[in-house]
């Protein structure tokens, strides 16, 4: 992996002439986790998709720049909310999908290591339909990591999981994604409080920055500052979305 750059998205978006979000500046620090919260429909997914240069329903007026001034889109690995595992392919082939789609030789050593790290060794030959929700998310995460990109965009990556599995997945992701520039969209204030080096709440009017706890990521679920941060976020979300 190359050195992870910082990224700045600056601009506004509208859908059919109606403003989706007012001019805003979202800066992702290089090699850090940024968490983006906000009510349903404010345009969080739109922001992610704009960064990945994927089609959105919105007209974006602005720019997306990396601190190293090189294009952003091809250095991104994108994990959508839906795990998007190919149902006909095995776990192993799903993880190695990128290489196959580019006609490159798959890095077998890397696949082995990721299977190990994500606890998927026993499941490598299975089809996605034979996996639990948590296992599927792990495969999707492994596929995202397999891409070995410096910038990672995660759209509500762990929302489908129960609390315990979610916490475990957050730990795993934090560990595996160290030193990458990560943007996580989430509905879960607790997730932001655990993972964010920077935390923003998005509304139609713009972004509100919320100071994360000072401790290092991933923060313990039950640490007092994590809990305080979580409640602050929760209060802010309730105020802004009603």
């Amino acid at each position: 992996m190359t050195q992870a750059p910082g990224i700045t998205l600056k601009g506004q978006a509208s859908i059919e002439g109606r403003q989706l979000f007012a001019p805003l500046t979202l800066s992702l620090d290089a090699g850090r986790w940024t968490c983006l919260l906000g009510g349903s429909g404010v345009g969080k997914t739109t922001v992610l998709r704009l960064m990945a240069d994927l089609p959105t329903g919105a007209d974006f007026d602005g720019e997306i720049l990396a601190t190293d001034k090189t294009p952003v889109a091809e250095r991104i690995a994108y994990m959508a909310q839906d795990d998007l595992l190919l149902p006909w392919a095995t776990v192993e082939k799903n993880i190695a999908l990128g290489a196959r789609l580019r006609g490159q030789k798959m890095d077998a050593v890397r696949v082995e290591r990721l299977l190990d790290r994500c606890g998927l060794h026993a499941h490598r030959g299975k089809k996605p339909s034979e996996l639990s929700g948590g296992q599927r998310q792990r495969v999707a995460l492994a596929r995202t990591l397999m891409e070995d990109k410096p910038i990672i965009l995660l759209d509500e990556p762990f929302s489908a999981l129960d609390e315990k599995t979610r916490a475990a997945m957050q730990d795993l992701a934090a560990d595996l994604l160290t030193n990458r520039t990560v943007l996580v969209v989430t509905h879960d204030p607790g997730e932001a409080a655990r993972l964010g080096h920077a935390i923003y709440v998005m509304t139609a009017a713009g972004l509100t920055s919320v100071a994360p706890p000072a401790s290092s990521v991933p923060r313990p679920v039950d640490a007092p500052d994590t809990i305080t941060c979580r409640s602050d976020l929760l209060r802010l979300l309730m105020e802004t979305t009603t």
Partner: protein
Amino acid sequence: MKLWPPIAATVFALCVWQAVVTLTGVQKFILPSPTLVAETWWLNRWLIAEHTLITLNEILIGLVIGISLGVVTALTLASSKTARTLLAPMLVFTQALPVFALAPILTLWLGYGIWSKAAMAVLITYFPVTSAFFDGLMRTPSGYLDLAKTMQASPRRVLWYIRVPAALPNLGAGVRLAAVYAPIGAVIGEWVGSSKGLGYLMLLANGRAKTDLMFAAMLTLGVLSVLLYVLMAKLTRRLGDRET
């Protein structure tokens, strides 16, 4: 699937048929009884077998060519926008023409042999296969395509590793339809002009008021179609979870 319910239903239908014939005393050249049809079938089994083989041959040739052409067309349409704008309207237009009307022309062009019948089967199977497979290729879940885009996939590889496997169940549905249509195509071809095949036998028997033989040939064709369908269903069931 349990086998006994359809068997029970068939036996019941045969009993009703037999009862109708016995009770009304209808003449056998109007409606022969199932027992008479069975007897006729047995007496003419070699004759019927010979004609069945001919028809089966036409059907299989038609299926293989029709499915292949359909697959190639669908892939071409799916991978090229130009092909779509040029060919798609034409394809739909040709479907508005009654295929039956083409049968005499095919006989004129390809002669009395099996080729004009196979061509009929091709014509009648080509469209359902093309349309089902093409539809599947164009309906790839957009999330997969987004994923492929972020992975810098080439269009050819996206087609082969994502769109085609995602569309295989649709292709399966098209192939199963084709298996039902192909025998119809072959028999229409035979009706227009032939000296062999189950369609020919049916016309011949009908013309000589051998209604029992007509029924025997027709039921044979029906059983052949069902077997073909079951075979295709078995073959295509695997398509859904094929490994790439």
